[in-house]
């Protein structure tokens, strides 16, 4: 049977077909759909979980692998940084049953904070890296990845990018086949990485890499397609598709196993073509290694490491390289200047209420990873920093201890992010006698990635009921004595509580209590609001809360400024605009 599947869906299918029994992840674009698909379609055969963070996701998958189950852990590129601690030594211990770590990279940072190229983790940890170039390979390579993992006793890094993970293509499906493995068996020389054993394993890692290099020369994952020999292209992942589109007649060496490289195959390929051009997205990962063994090749001077590639960039690169005549360039047409549509907090989002109150507090606000980061933009302009998961609390602490900043600093962090890696920071604040206010914007879901459960939501990924962590109790247990909960739609109380806690000379936590409007299910408004145009003076107060439901109407005041209107399709009745309107022009709609 053939189906239209995204790379993520196809990978999930591959895990199912090739005997995967355990899958863990922390949600992160563009990797999230892997576990969502597995949980939806395969949970009878594959155990699935949202782990509390990526380090835990990898470590539980390692346990499952040592315990005899083929396992995968999936995360976005920056998630691998969180999981890097277990990863680097996992390279020494090796696996039990096959183990795959999926790194979903995001060139062009469509939904990320950087464009790091995680192929380097393969080289860093001396483990193999597989890179599928479409949905079919996203399924097929799972078989190879499990087999390589088991044959060479190594975790396998399965590296995809946004255009692989989120593009759909036709995929041939197969049946599930399972592989028998024994359960955990004591073997301290392999599993106890104290120096005496680890040093022996490091030697194994070096030997294993040599064996993998030999394997790379013969594996079907790396394919040569000989064509015209004026230009030989070395490429992999989606960059291969762009190059193939632009230079269909050229000779290609397509790399599916992108670390370690098949150097003899590359030398042989180079000898058959007049000129070697490397087309790869982001960093010169292949290019530098190929140059290092003394094979002349060109790459990054035509296809820069800035942002994702596409067909036009690859065509321009080949034209610049002289591999394509200028006449093949498509005529460039002028781009129209159309107003931007930056993403905004949803109508009815509880973060808006918190941000409106915070704006009046005159503080620095360190932020974290989540929807609330959008409040850095106009008109709210409250969030001042965003670096990585869980960092907000620690940044606020550091700014306070540096003693150079007059204004107070507060930290804003979401519930899922707090559980991911905020708890340790808050413990550190208490331990090291910080006095900051930390605000947990608890919307009861992992919202930014599309509404995933977490240890505070009382539901597992497999749909089972479970214990929900009580944030108030947790924070108190860390030693925070001053813990308050507020309804962020009640502006007066929220502001009063914030001011009181910010003033306090002791660590405090404020937790907002309203759920996300989209997840787990879209809020059904009990009431809606509208603008009485005869009362509206076009003062703009409601515009400044940044609600997508509030737009300019065609009615103008005497100075020609537009009065506001509320889109009733979008209004959730949150009352925030009603609370800021000085003219009582915004009123509840009578049914």
């Amino acid at each position, binding site marked *: 049977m053939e189906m239209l599947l995204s790379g993520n869906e196809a990978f999930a299918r591959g895990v199912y077909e090739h005997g995967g029994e355990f899958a863990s992840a922390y949600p992160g674009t563009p990797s999230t759909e892997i576990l969502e698909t597995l949980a939806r379609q395969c949970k009878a055969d594959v155990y699935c979980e949202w782990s509390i963070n990526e380090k835990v996701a990898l470590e539980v998958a390692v346990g499952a692998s040592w315990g005899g189950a083929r396992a995968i852990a999936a995360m976005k590129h920056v998630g691998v940084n969180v999981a890097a601690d277990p990863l680097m030594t996992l390279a020494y211990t090796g696996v039990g049953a096959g183990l795959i770590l999926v790194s979903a990279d995001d060139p062009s940072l469509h*939904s990320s904070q950087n464009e790091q190229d995680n192929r380097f983790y393969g080289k860093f940890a001396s483990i193999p890296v597989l890179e599928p170039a479409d949905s079919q390979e996203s399924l097929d390579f799972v078989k190879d990845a499990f087999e390589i993992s088991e044959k060479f006793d190594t975790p396998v890094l399965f590296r995809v990018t946004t255009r692989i993970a989120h593009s*759909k*293509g036709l995929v041939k499906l197969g049946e599930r086949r399972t592989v028998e493995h024994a359960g955990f068996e004591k073997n301290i020389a392999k599993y106890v990485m104290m120096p005496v054993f680890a040093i022996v394993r490091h030697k194994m890692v070096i030997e294993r890499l040599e064996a993998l290099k030999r394997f790379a020369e013969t594996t079907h994952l790396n394919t040569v397609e000989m064509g015209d020999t004026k230009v030989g292209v070395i490429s992999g992942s989606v960059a291969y598709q762009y190059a193939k589109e632009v230079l269909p007649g050229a000779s290609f060496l397509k790399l599916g196993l992108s670390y370690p490289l098949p150097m003899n195959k590359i030398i042989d390929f180079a000898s058959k073509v007049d000129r070697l051009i490397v087309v790869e997205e982001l960093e010169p990962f292949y290019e530098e290694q190929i140059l290092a063994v003394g094979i002349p090749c060109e790459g990054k001077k035509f296809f820069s490491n800035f942002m994702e590639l596409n067909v*036009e960039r690859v065509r321009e690169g080949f034209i610049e390289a002289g591999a394509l005549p200028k006449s093949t360039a*498509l005529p460039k*047409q002028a781009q129209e200047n159309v*107003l931007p549509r930056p993403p905004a907090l949803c109508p009815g989002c509880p973060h808006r209420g918190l941000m409106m109150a915070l704006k009046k507090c005159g503080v620095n606000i360190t932020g974290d990873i989540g929807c609330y980061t959008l409040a850095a933009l106009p008109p709210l302009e409250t969030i001042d920093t965003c670096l990585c998961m869980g960092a907000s609390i620690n940044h606020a602490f550091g700014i306070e201890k540096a003693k150079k900043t007059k204004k107070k600093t507060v930290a804003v962090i979401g519930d899922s992010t707090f559980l991911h890696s905020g708890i340790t920071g808050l413990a550190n604040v208490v331990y090291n006698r910080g006095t900051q206010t930390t605000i947990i914007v608890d919307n009861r879901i992992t919202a930014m990635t599309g509404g995933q459960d977490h240890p505070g939501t009382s539901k597992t990924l497999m749909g089972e009921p479970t214990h929900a962590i009580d944030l108030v109790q947790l924070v108190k247990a860390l030693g925070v004595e001053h813990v308050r909960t507020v309804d962020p739609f009640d502006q007066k109380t929220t502001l009063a509580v914030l001011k009181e806690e910010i003033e306090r000379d002791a660590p405090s936590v404020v937790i907002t209590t309203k759920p996300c409007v989209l997840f787990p299910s879209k809020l059904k408004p009990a009431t809606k609001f509208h603008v009485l145009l005869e009362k509206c003076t076009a003062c703009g107060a409601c515009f400044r809360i940044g609600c997508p439901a509030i737009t300019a109407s065609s009615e103008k005041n005497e100075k020609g400024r537009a009065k506001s209107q509320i889109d009733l399709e979008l209004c959730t009745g949150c009352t925030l605009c009603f609370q800021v309107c000085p003219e009582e022009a915004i009123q509840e709609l009578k049914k």
Partner: protein
Amino acid sequence: MKDGTTNVLIVGVGGQGVLLASEMLCQVAKTMGLDAKKSEVHGMSQRGGVVTSHVRFGKKVHSPLIEEGAADVILAFEVAEGLRWVHYLKPGGTIIVNEQRIVPPIATTGKFSYPDKVEDTIKARVPHTTVIDAFEIGKKLGNTKLVNTILLGVLSNDLDLEESKWLEVIEKMAPKGTGEINKKAFIEGRQAAK
């Protein structure tokens, strides 16, 4: 249809149903035995951002992305979005513009304004412009949620895909119990543009 591959760019604003429409188009191509790929960026789209979906089908499709200046057809669910992406159209290509206007909140800051006479600007650039009020057609059919399939009906006139396959896919993919009305909406759209 360069190299036998057809390129359709579907654009709009988060929440308009762009992704479902592109999924249906892809399925029709698949049903006809063609290779098909599509690509879009998830993530921020449901927060009112710009949504684009690249759909490509033909004998063998490599890139999931359409090259700038190579789209055979652009289907714009929203007028300003049609204008934003018009440079993706190949010379001689067709653009279909749904008359809906969605003004982003950023327009209230006074720093940006929603463009005037968008349809005229597009028509001046593209001889093959079809402007359609799918919302109005949906209203006549008694359901404005049909905009999606109405626009696919309009689009179908510019593509070499069989009507019966379209209807088959719509029947299969429309929300439960809405197969008939969606097929009707498709046919309305298909005829409206003629």
